[in-house]
C-alpha cells in the first residue's frame, strides 16, 4: 500500500474518555471559526472537491496528534500548495464566495446524486460480501467492514464515487447502498454482545454477491 489513511478509526482501541459538550460551545480558540469559514469558502472556488479535502486530511501523518480544526488547517495549507493556488500564476477560481452569496450558496448545497450509468446490481434484502481489502487509494469502506457479509437495507441512487473523485479521476457515479451487519460478523463471536446492528453506506464497487 502506498496510500495510507490515519483516520480510519472504527473499532480501534482508543481509551480516552468521550467528553460531552454543551450545545452552544462551537469553537475553542479564535482561529477555529476562521479555519471553518476558510474551508467552506474555498469550496465554490473549485480548488478541490470534498473527497480531495478528505484525502488531504486523512493522509496527514500526524493526524492523530492534531485537533480537528488543526487537521482542517493543515490539509487546506497542503492543498493550496499542491493546487498552485499560492503560486505566481494561480488558476482562476470558479466562483469567489462574496458576503451576499454566503446564505444562498450554503442553502443550495451541492448534491452528490448523479444519473446512473448502469443498472443497480443489488436490491434491498440481497446478501453481499464487502471486498476483502481497501484499495490503494482514498476510499470510504472502513477497514472494520472489509471482507464481511451483510444485507442490503437501502438504496440511495448513484452518487459521486470518492475513490476516483479524490484523485482527480472523475466522478464515475456508482450505486450507493446501506449495508447492515450483525455485530458478531464484524467483531467476532468472542466480543461481548451489545445487541447492535451496524451499517455502512457502501458504493457498488465495494460489494460482491454473497
Amino acid at each position, binding site marked *: 500500500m502506498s496510500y495510507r489513511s490515519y*483516520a480510519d478509526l472504527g473499532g480501534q482501541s482508543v481509551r480516552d474518555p468521550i467528553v*460531552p459538550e454543551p450545545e*452552544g460551545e462551537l469553537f475553542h480558540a479564535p*482561529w477555529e471559526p476562521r479555519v471553518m469559514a476558510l474551508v*467552506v469558502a474555498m469550496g465554490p472556488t473549485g480548488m478541490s472537491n470534498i473527497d480531495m479535502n478528505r484525502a488531504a486530511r486523512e493522509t496527514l501523518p500526524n493526524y492523530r496528534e492534531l485537533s480537528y480544526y488543526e487537521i482542517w*488547517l493543515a490539509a487546506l495549507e497542503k492543498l493550496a*500548495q499542491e493546487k498552485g493556488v499560492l503560486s505566481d500564476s494561480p488558476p482562476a477560481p470558479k466562483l469567489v464566495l462574496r458576503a451576499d452569496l454566503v446564505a444562498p450558496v450554503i442553502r443550495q*448545497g*451541492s448534491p*452528490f446524486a448523479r444519473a446512473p450509468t448502469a443498472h443497480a446490481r443489488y436490491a434491498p434484502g440481497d446478501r453481499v460480501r464487502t471486498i476483502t481489502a481497501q484499495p490503494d487509494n482514498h476510499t470510504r469502506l472502513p477497514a472494520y467492514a472489509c471482507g464481511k457479509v451483510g444485507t442490503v437495507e437501502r438504496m440511495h441512487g448513484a452518487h459521486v464515487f470518492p475513490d476516483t473523485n479524490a484523485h482527480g479521476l472523475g466522478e464515475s457515479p456508482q450505486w450507493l447502498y446501506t449495508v447492515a451487519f450483525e455485530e458478531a460478523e464484524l467483531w467476532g463471536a468472542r466480543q461481548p454482545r451489545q445487541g447492535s446492528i451496524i451499517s455502512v453506506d457502501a458504493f457498488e464497487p465495494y460489494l460482491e454477491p454473497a
Partner: protein
Amino acid sequence: MNEHHPNDAGPPAQHSPTEHSHAGHSHHEAPRAAALELRVRALEQQLTAKGYIDPAALDVLIDEYQTKIGPRNGARVVARAWCDAEFRRWLLSDATAAIASLGLTGRQGEHMVAVENTPQVHNLVVCTLCSCYPWAVLGLPPTWYKSAPYRARAVKDPRGVLREFGVELPPTTQIRIWDSTAEVRYLVLPQRPAGSEHLSEAQLAALVTRDSMIGTGLVGSTALGDATDAIDGAP
C-alpha cells in the same frame, strides 16, 4: 509556508485531541495557540491576495453557523414529526424533501435519512472515517463527535459509549448504528417523552437536545449531556 509548520510536530504526548480542545487555555498551550493564530492569518491573507477569499464572506459564514444553522433547526423537524403524523411519515420516507419543506436545505444536508427511535430500536449516528454530520439540521458537529474515542468505540461498544453520556438502555433494545461513510446524512427522530401530550410544538422543540438527534441522548432523560447543556449551554 514551511516556516509556519514547526508546531506540526504535535502537542505533548499526554494530550489527546479531545483533551487539547478542552484544555486550550493552559499555560503550555499558549505558544501553540499563538502559532496557529499566525498560520491561519497568513493563509487567509495569502488566499485573499490571490483572489480566492473575500474576508467579509468569512464573517458572514461564521455568523450563519453561530446564530442560524444549528440544532434548534433539527429540533423543529423532530417536534413537527411528533405533532403531525403525516409529516412524520414523509420524514421517514423522504427526509430530504420533508426537511426542505421547513426551509432547511443545503450544505451537508443534501441527502437526508431520518431514523426513528422506538422502545425496540435505538439509533446512533457516527462517522468513523472523518466527521460527516448533518450540518443543515444540526449545525457544526461537537468536538466529541469528531474525536477518536467516539469514532473508534461507537461502532464496537455502543452501550459503553451511551453510558458515558449517562444513557442506559434496556438490554432488549437493539442499538442500530449508522456509520456515515458516504454523503447520506442521518437524523435520529427521538422518542417523544411520556406525559408531553399537553405541550405545543414549540415547547416540544425546546425539549429536543442535539445529542438526542445524534442518538447519544434521550429526550426528557437526565442524561449527563443534557444536564451539562442545561447548566452551561444557556445562551
